[in-house]
C-alpha cells in the first residue's frame, strides 16, 4: 500500500470531506497561504477559496465561537487552535458552550464542531508550547476526545469527526506530522470508541495513545527479544473509550502499564488505572503501573525536555517491574 505522511493523511481527510459536504469549512490562524503551522492545510486556500478556508486574526475564543455559531446553524466547521496551549484562551467556548449546548438546551441545538489542535513536547519549544492537556477535555462531559497515532488512524478518524454531530477535540502531536504510514487510496472511516491493538501480546498490556504508541511499540519490540510478549493497546479515541476491549486485553495478560505523555498528576493514565482497578481487580496479577510525564513545565534544554516525558526505556522498566 502507498505510504503518506500523517499531515498528508489529515489533508486528504479534509479534502474528501469538503468535497463531499459543502457545509464543511475551516477556520483558524495562518491557515490560508501559510497552510497552518504544520502545513496540514497547504494548498487548500487555492482549492476552496477564502469562504471555506477562513484565515483569522489571533483570536482564539472567537475562532471557537465562530465554529460553534456556524455549527448551530447548519454548518460543519473545523476550528483550529494552533497549539493546545492556546486552547487556554478558548476554554469558555469549548467547555461552557460547545460541550454543554446540546445537553443544556434539551437537545434543541447541537454542535457538530471539530476542534483540531496539537500538543506534546519534543521540539524545544518550552513550557508554553509543549503541553499535553487532553486530560482537561477528557474531564468535560460533552466532548469527544480523539488522539490518533498513525496516518491511517488520523485520516479515518478525522473523517468520522467531521460527520459527528457533537463537538470533537481532535488532538495531534507535533512530533509525528512527518511520520509516514500506509493509507489506502479508497475511502474509509474509523468509528469512535474502537481501539486498535497495534501489536498483540500475552504477558503485559501496554495502553498508549498518540505519539506514545511508538514508544510502546519500540519497548515491545525490545522486550520481545528478551522473551516478554507485550500487547500494545491504542484506544485511538479516549472519549468514547473502548473499555470492553481494554478489559479483555487485561484479562488476557493480567498486567497493565498505562502510558501518557502528559504529566502524571491528574493524567488520563491515572484515570485508566482507576477504571481498570475497578473493573478487573481480580484479573490483575500485579498493580497497574502508570508511566507518564514528570510534574514539571516542559523545559527548553533538550536533555531536560527528554527527561520530562516518558520514552521506550521508561516503559521497558515499568513492564519489567511487573514481572
Amino acid at each position, binding site marked *: 500500500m502507498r505510504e503518506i505522511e500523517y499531515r498528508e493523511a489529515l489533508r486528504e481527510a479534509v479534502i474528501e470531506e469538503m468535497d463531499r459536504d459543502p457545509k464543511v469549512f475551516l477556520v483558524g490562524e495562518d491557515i490560508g497561504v501559510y497552510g497552518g503551522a504544520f502545513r496540514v492545510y497547504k494548498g487548500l486556500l487555492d482549492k476552496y477559496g477564502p469562504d471555506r478556508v477562513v484565515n483569522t*486574526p489571533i483570536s482564539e475564543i472567537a475562532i471557537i*465561537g465562530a465554529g460553534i455559531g456556524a455549527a*448551530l446553524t447548519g454548518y460543519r466547521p473545523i476550528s483550529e487552535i494552533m497549539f493546545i496551549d492556546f486552547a487556554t484562551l478558548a476554554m469558555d467556548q469549548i467547555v*461552557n*458552550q460547545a460541550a454543554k449546548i446540546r*445537553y443544556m438546551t434539551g437537545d434543541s*441545538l447541537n454542535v457538530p464542531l471539530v476542534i483540531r489542535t496539537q500538543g506534546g513536547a519534543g521540539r524545544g519549544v518550552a513550557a508554553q508550547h509543549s503541553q499535553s492537556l487532553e486530560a482537561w477535555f477528557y474531564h468535560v462531559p460533552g466532548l469527544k476526545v480523539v488522539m490518533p497515532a498513525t496516518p491511517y488512524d488520523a485520516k479515518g478518524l478525522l473523517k468520522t469527526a467531521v460527520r459527528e454531530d457533537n463537538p470533537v477535540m481532535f488532538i495531534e502531536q507535533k512530533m509525528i506530522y512527518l511520520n509516514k504510514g500506509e493509507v489506502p487510496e479508497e475511502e474509509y472511516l474509523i468509528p469512535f470508541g474502537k481501539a486498535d491493538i497495534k501489536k498483540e501480546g500475552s504477558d503485559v498490556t501496554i495502553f498508549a495513545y498518540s505519539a506514545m504508541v511508538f514508544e510502546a511499540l519500540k519497548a515491545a519490540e525490545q522486550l520481545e527479544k528478551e522473551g516478554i510478549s507485550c500487547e500494545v493497546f491504542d484506544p485511538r479515541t479516549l472519549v468514547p473509550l473502548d473499555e470492553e476491549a481494554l478489559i479483555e486485553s487485561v484479562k488476557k495478560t493480567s498486567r497493565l502499564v498505562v502510558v501518557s505523555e502528559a504529566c502524571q498528576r491528574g493524567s488520563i493514565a491515572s484515570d485508566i488505572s482507576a477504571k481498570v482497578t475497578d473493573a478487573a481487580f481480580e484479573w490483575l496479577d500485579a498493580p497497574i503501573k502508570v508511566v507518564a510525564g514528570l510534574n514539571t513545565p516542559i523545559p527548553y534544554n533538550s536533555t531536560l525536555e527528554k527527561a520530562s516525558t516518558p520514552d521506550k526505556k521508561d516503559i521497558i522498566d515499568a513492564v519489567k517491574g511487573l514481572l
Partner: protein
Amino acid sequence: MSKLKKQEKISMLRTLLTIRKFEEKTIQLYQTAKIWGYLHPYLGQEAVAVGSCAAIEKDDYIVSTHRGHGHCIAKGGDLNKMMAELLGKSTGYCKGRGGSMHIADTELGILGANGIVGGGIPISVGAGFSCKFDKKGRVTICYFGDGASNNGVFHESLNMASIFKLPIIYICENNLYGISMCSKDSVACKNIGDRASAYAMPGYVIDGSDPEEVYKTVSGAVEHARKGNGPSLIEAQAYRFTGHHPNDPAEYREKQEVEYHKTEKDPVHNYSKKLADEKIIGSEELEAMEKEIQKMVDSSVEFAEKSPEPELDKFLEEVKNI
C-alpha cells in the same frame, strides 16, 4: 426600512406587555421558591428586545444572554415552554435541564441564552458566517450587556465580524450596571456605542426605552447588513428595574436614579401612553389586551405546574450518551 404600521405598533405593545407580565410572574414564582437557581428579570429593558425583534424576520437569528426572557418572547418564544423550563419540567424548552439561562429554539432562530457573560458574542460570529455563506439575506442579532462589553470576547468578535463583513447587529443593552458596578465606572470611554470605530463599523447610542427608536435604528442596521455591508454596534440605553436578581436589594444604586427610570423611562407605560395619545389603542382595548396577556401568562404557569418532572431513570440512561 418601512414605517411602522398601526398593527405593528399594537403588536409591539402587546409584546412589551407580555414580557412585563411574564417577568412579574417569574419574580413571584422565584420568591415562592417555585423557580430556583438564578433568575435575571428583564423588567425595564423590554423595549430593546421588542423594537429589535420587530426589525427582523422569523428566520433571522438571535443570540441571547443570562437576562434573556425578553429576547425569547420578542422572537416568538412559547410562554408555556419557557415557564415549564423555569419550573424545571420535562415539557420545558430544555426538558428541565437548563433553567432560565439556557433557553433556545431552533425553529425560531433563538440560538440560546447564556450563563456566561459575553458567552454568546463569539457564537454570533459563527451565526454571522452562516448567514453570509447561505446568501439568503439572513442576519443575526447579538445581545449583550454593558458589563459584557468589557470582556475580551467583545473585542475579538466585533473585530472578526467586521473584517469578514458578517451580517450581525450587535446590541449592547446598557442598563447602567453589571451586577453592582456602574457602567460609568467599568467602561473606560463615554459611550459603548463609540467603540464601533475601533472595528470600523457604524455605531449608535440610542434610547432603549423607546421601542420605536430601537426599531428604527435596528432596521437601518439590518438593511446595512443584508446589503453585505457588515455589522453594526448599537448601544441601547435602558434600565434594570429590579436588582440583578430578585433577591438583590441593589444597595449600590441611588434611590433617585431608580425612581427616575421607573417613573420617567418605563418603556411599557410610556409606550402604552404614546399609543393611547396617538389614538392607536383605546383604554378598553388596552385593558382587554392586558387581561388576555395575564391569562396567557397564568395559563403558562398552570401548564408548567401540571407538567411532569423529568424522569430520573431516563436521565441516568441519557447520561451514558453524553
